[in-house]
């Protein structure tokens, strides 16, 4: 307990450096979630509404990919982005861009799978009525997405929580470079490996506070919406 208090005190002393780390963490994770949402929501909607050969296999695969180990994703993206790899020309390795890519890959299955579940439940409820009114599949997809918006927000926040908490992927593709690619999780890993546990704990407390805030916001949104819209 005393270690956490001391850690928080040390963390507050870091101010500028800490501020940079926290801001970078949020930027990387938010960008990744944005990309994953832009790709994952339509994918989830497509899987929820359209019937096609191999649909069940895709759903099983997507659910399995939710459990992708971050280090494995990190390694694969590292091999892709390395100068010795196919996308080396982009010069993205060891930059925040690489971290965003890795986290997008990690978070996309989560958002798509959770969105698919929410939208499939909604489709079960709405399908007959929407088809009776003459909605075509694409139209119905958009209507479902808007109507299930609160469940989808929860899915997106689940993705954000995963992105903010992972260390394996960003460590490998980012390189934990001081001032450039050091984020909260890699900073905690570094301080722990240096044996500076109070500082690591302090940073951990800040990270947990952020994740808690995100989840509290999600809960408030859901409850408020439930009350207003039924």
């Amino acid at each position, binding site marked *: 307990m005393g270690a956490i208090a001391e850690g928080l005190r040390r963390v507050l002393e870091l101010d500028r450096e800490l501020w940079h780390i926290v801001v970078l963490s949020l*930027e990387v994770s*938010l*960008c990744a979630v*944005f*990309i994953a949402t832009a790709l994952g929501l339509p994918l989830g909607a497509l899987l929820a509404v359209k019937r096609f050969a191999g649909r069940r296999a895709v759903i099983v695969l997507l659910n399995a990919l939710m459990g992708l180990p971050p280090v494995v994703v990190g390694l694969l993206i590292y091999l892709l982005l*390395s*100068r*010795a*790899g196919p996308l*080396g020309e*982009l*010069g*993205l*390795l*060891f*930059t*925040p*861009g690489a971290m*965003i890519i890795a986290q997008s890959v990690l978070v996309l299955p989560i958002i798509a799978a959770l969105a698919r579940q929410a939208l499939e439940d909604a489709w079960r409820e709405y399908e007959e009525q929407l088809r009776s009114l003459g909605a075509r599949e694409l139209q119905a997809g958009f209507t479902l997405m808007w109507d299930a918006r609160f469940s989808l927000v929860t899915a997106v926040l689940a993705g954000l929580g995963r992105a903010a908490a992972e260390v394996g992927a960003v460590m490998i593709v980012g*390189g*934990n*470079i*001081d001032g*450039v690619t050091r984020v909260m999780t890699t900073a905690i890993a*570094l301080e*722990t*490996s*240096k*044996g*500076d*546990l109070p500082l690591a704990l302090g940073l951990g407390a800040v990270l947990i506070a952020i994740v808690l805030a995100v989840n509290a916001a999600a809960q408030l949104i859901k409850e408020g919406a439930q009350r207003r819209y039924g």
Partner: protein
Amino acid sequence: MGLIRVALLAFAFAGVALAQDGFITVASTTSTEQSGLFKYLLPIFEKKTGIQVRVVAVGTGQALDIGRRGDADVVLVHAKPLEEKFMAEGQGVKRYDVMYNDFVLIGPKSDPAHVAGMKDVAAAFRKIAEAKAAFVSRGDRSGTHFAELEIWKLAGIDIAKDKGPWYRDTGQGMGPALNTAAAMNAYILSDRGTWLSFKNRARLTIVVQGDRRLFNQYGVMVVNPQKHPSVKAQLAQAFVDWLISPAGQDAIAGYRVNGEQLFFPNAGH
């Protein structure tokens, strides 16, 4: 609305990554970074030249691998045989000595193998093996790991064959390995820098130091731009030139931890 801002941020990031030119990437080791040397040294260089130095700190094996892939412009490690192999492969332009620090044998204050104060580190290792006292190894192909293996050889011990449950191969960096040794109250070979900054000492202390064979030589190489066209050869050479220049060497000597000098410049010796 907020979504658009985040999207723009994303592109700005990519843009910054691609457009920024005045920086080099140095692949070095975790122990060097954790010693705090870079935090002290690099701002001096950056102020003088305007070149930003980005250090990716990993194990020695991985640092050299990063160099071989062309993902770094400079490699700065402390494992001369591996560095010479790197040069023999044509992966580096030229190898320079930069500085040395030393390793120290850490052990429990209770000293079950009775090695405290010995001047011969190989003999100390032999006594530890005979006593089957707990010993933590990094086991991660790092410079420190290779140094440890060398000493076992000098002690006449085939550690791969003769190790028992007393020898713990952890595959970790220096900090985590020290944490493990502290928790197990075991012997461990560490670089002085990491030990001086290590805050979780429990019941451990330095038991053997000063043996010449514990000196740890650092070498720096610019990654060969002929093999890897993306290497920023000019900026990288500027960094290496500064490191081995009197100004750079003085800066290295000026780095203190708890009032003690950690690195001893020896370029051109």
